[in-house]
């Protein structure tokens, strides 16, 4: 029983981290159909910027904000200079964003070196909650709380506000949205920046959990993609459920079948896609 609770908790907290990447990625996919190989780099660079801010100021909240805002600007620049013009050209998008991912990877090496770092968590977030025999690290609970807050905010914005309605309209049919007077290019730009912002938040938060190290970008990227395709592109609900599924499958797969752990993650995903090619909640 303890094993199940602990493993489930670990799976959920990793799923929460994935949601921070995949939530934005999913809306970007749904809206612009951009295959963004740089999304993992936003996560890694966000973590690095957060690390530097922590070193300089010691302020964790500032680290999250600075990391996220810096990366949102980076994403905005990349989108405006290149990706905006590559609409509908999947190959062009993959190769361009892969180019940026390699450049960012190298910049990370130049600026922060090849050593792994951990972002020190503030005292309030260290230690564990104890319930009976079980220990729950506060930091992991914090990650779940952050992801849940982001999910609720995104949901409220998407479903309850005028801007959200514009975003949903653009996801459904960009041409019609433009026709009824929605500023689609501006909305797209905002959503792309938001996706980069959230990925960087994930990166800083992950810095106190799995650490910041070269290669983290390409380690997490396939996971984020899998969440998005399984959940369905453009679906917030799909991103939430997909993140939890991937987090749990990854954790239990590693616990039960260490030799086949990635297989137990990606094979069920492929099976779901065989039945529903557009993902659980996606529309073609």
């Amino acid at each position, binding site marked *: 029983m303890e094993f199940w609770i602990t493993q489930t908790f670990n799976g959920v907290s990793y799923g929460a981290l994935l949601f921070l990447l995949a939530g934005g990625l999913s809306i970007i*996919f749904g809206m612009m*159909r951009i*295959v963004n*190989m740089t999304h993992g780099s936003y996560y890694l660079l966000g973590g690095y910027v957060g690390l530097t801010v922590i070193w300089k100021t010691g302020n964790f909240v500032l680290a999250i904000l600075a990391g996220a805002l810096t990366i949102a600007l980076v994403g905005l620049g990349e989108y405006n200079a*290149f990706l905006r*013009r*590559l*609409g*509908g*050209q*999947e*190959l*062009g998008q*993959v*190769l*361009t964003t*892969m*180019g*940026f*991912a*390699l*450049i960012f*990877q*190298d*910049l990370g*090496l*130049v600026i922060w070196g090849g050593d792994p770092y951990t972002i020190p968590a503030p005292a309030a977030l260290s230690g564990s909650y104890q319930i009976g025999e079980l220990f729950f690290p506060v930091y992991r609970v914090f990650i779940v709380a952050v992801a849940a807050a982001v999910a609720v905010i995104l949901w409220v914005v998407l479903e309850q506000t005028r801007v959200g309605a514009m975003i949903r309209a653009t996801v459904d049919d960009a041409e019609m949205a433009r026709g009824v007077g929605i500023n689609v*290019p501006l909305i797209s730009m905002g959503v792309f920046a938001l996706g980069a912002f959230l990925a960087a938040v994930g990166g800083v938060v992950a810095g106190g959990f799995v650490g910041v190290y070269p290669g983290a970008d*390409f380690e997490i*990227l*396939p996971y984020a*993609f*899998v969440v*998005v*395709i399984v959940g369905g*592109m453009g679906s917030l609900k799909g991103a939430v459920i997909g993140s939890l599924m991937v987090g749990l499958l990854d954790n239990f797969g590693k616990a039960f079948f*260490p*030799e*086949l*752990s*990635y*297989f137990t*993650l*990606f*094979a069920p*995903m*492929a*099976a779901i*896609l*065989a039945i529903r*090619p*557009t993902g659980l909640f996606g529309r073609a």
Partner: protein
Amino acid sequence: MLPRHRVIGLGIMLLLLLVAPPFLSSFLLTLLTQALIYGILAMSLDLILGYTGLASLGHAAYLGLGAYSVGVLTTRHGANFWVTLAVGLLLAAVVAAVFGLVALRATGVYFLMITLALGMVIWGLAHRWVSMTQGDIGISGVPRPDLGLPWSLAKGIPFYYFSLAGFLLALWVLWVVVRSPFGQSLVGIRESESRMRTLGYHVWLHKYIGFIIAGTVGGFSGVLWGYYNGFVSPADVELATSVEILLMVALGGRATLLGPALGAGVIVLLKNLVSVYTHRWLLILGAVYIGTIVYAPEGIVGAVRQFAKGVKPEPLRSKA
């Protein structure tokens, strides 16, 4: 048949590939061998990417299947070349047949994403199925094949000619496929799937067969790669490798077969030569990715064709 100037051009290229080895340093010779093997892989991807219009983000899987067949069978069972070749090709074909069933239900971005997930399945096995693949350590000590020829393939020059023969064989097979009515219907599907369907073609089956042929030829390149490298590791099947194959095809020029082979040569040479001079080769490789899309969206072959026609290359298409 081909126009005369192209026959002459191809003849000169072939002649250069045939006579060059004795004049090259052993370093350049290994790079050229590597370029030929990656050339096969890039050409195999071109069949589905260039001719059929399906961008696969998991093509490194087939390189891995061929290479791991060689690694496991030679080091553990002492299998000879023909056995590993048969197993490698069969394995790649079977996996492509299974993956094709899943992936070909989707098109466009979805196809790209599903092939990525499927490629990760193979990567995951290579990475974690330690008892079979030795995980991240990889399988080392793969011997060069012994074909009973008077020349030992352990030496650089004989192995180069061996790879060249494999390259020409793969080129011939793929050339026959794309020139056949079947290959023409693949191009038709790329141009307009709905029209081909209306004309009564079984679109799905055409794509499926193309997908399996591409995977099998990819597996062939993997068999050569395993023998060439003497070492197989999960790096051969990772996502970055799959994207690199896409780059080779795009850089050379889609739907030209030899273009992607040329692209493979450029990337292999660039990666290895630049890394000799600078540690910043990732930066340069990244710039090549972006530069290809911005300046040569139709690849090297496309740019040369446009130059020959005296047309200015079109700048990056703007789609507001």
